[in-house]
């Protein structure tokens, strides 16, 4: 569903679920070098777009129209372009992310009920970025997914879970991944991610 916006005014800043456990600086075994960088990217908009069977192409062109992101036609295919990113995470379903708020209203009228649905998850998902030479190594501690570049190309998305924590993961760089987790689990997951990164030395931006 689309959250009603009060478009005429800037909305107050949202509170991050990571607030009390987010400690910028170097941590863990960093004396031997920092091999991963962790951050919360705090995009303004996180949307789920879902197409009815047969309407996927129209939905993808709608995404292109609104965001300029041209999605590859492949399961889990995705694309990153500066402030915006999109990827498929399930049959006919896509996550579209924008640094700016208010992306949902831009899709109203483009993704019509005949094509599919728009669900605003801007508050409900927390975006965590892991980058650095040991990003794949740390990710492998959590997810039973092959993170090697040939198996998980740039831009691609994956749906998986770590115990009860659902995660959508997009590769946003050669050694960079953006992880979308349920907000209620975000702090727990962040703590676990920091813990797992101690071994390689990590920095929080």
């Amino acid at each position, binding site marked *: 569903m689309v959250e009603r916006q009060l478009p005429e005014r800037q909305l107050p800043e949202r509170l991050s679920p990571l607030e009390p456990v987010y400690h910028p600086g170097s941590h863990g075994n960093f004396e031997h070098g920092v091999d991963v960088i962790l951050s919360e990217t705090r995009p303004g908009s996180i949307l789920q777009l879902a197409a009815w069977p*047969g309407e*996927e192409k129209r939905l993808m062109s709608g995404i292109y129209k609104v965001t300029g992101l041209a999605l590859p036609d492949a399961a*889990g295919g995705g694309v990153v372009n500066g402030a915006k990113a999109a990827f498929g995470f399930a049959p006919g379903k896509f996550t579209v992310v924008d640094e700016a708020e208010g992306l949902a209203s831009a899709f109203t009228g483009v993704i019509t009920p005949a094509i599919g649905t728009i669900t605003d998850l801007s508050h409900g998902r927390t975006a965590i970025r892991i980058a650095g030479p040991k990003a794949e190594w740390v990710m492998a501690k959590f997810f039973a997914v092959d993170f090697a570049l040939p198996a998980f190309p740039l831009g691609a998305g994956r749906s998986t879970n770590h115990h009860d924590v659902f995660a959508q993961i997009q590769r946003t760089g050669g050694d960079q991944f953006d992880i979308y987790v349920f907000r209620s689990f975000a702090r727990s997951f962040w703590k676990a991610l920091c813990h797992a990164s101690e071994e390689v030395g990590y920095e929080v931006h």
Partner: protein
Amino acid sequence: MLINCPYCGPRDVIEFTYQGDGNRKRPQPASQDLDAWNAYVYDRLNPAGDHNEIWQHSGGCRAHLRVVRNTVTHEILSTAFARGGHKSAGHKAGGNQ
């Protein structure tokens, strides 16, 4: 055990939830045929060998899959989306064979 999700590729069984015998036929919603309802709700095939099963990729794309699995060897013979459609655009074609 690995199940080859037609969307996500082969994934560990811990990402999946078993959703029962895939041979069951649900009677028409308005049906009053209690025998048919009983068969649907309670009767299960329990073959030693190939079996039609429904699995949900609950820890992944959440799609329900029709899986043919050998209950003796655990070999997965085929997987496919339970829901038809979704043939083109953003989907791998079919499951593994």
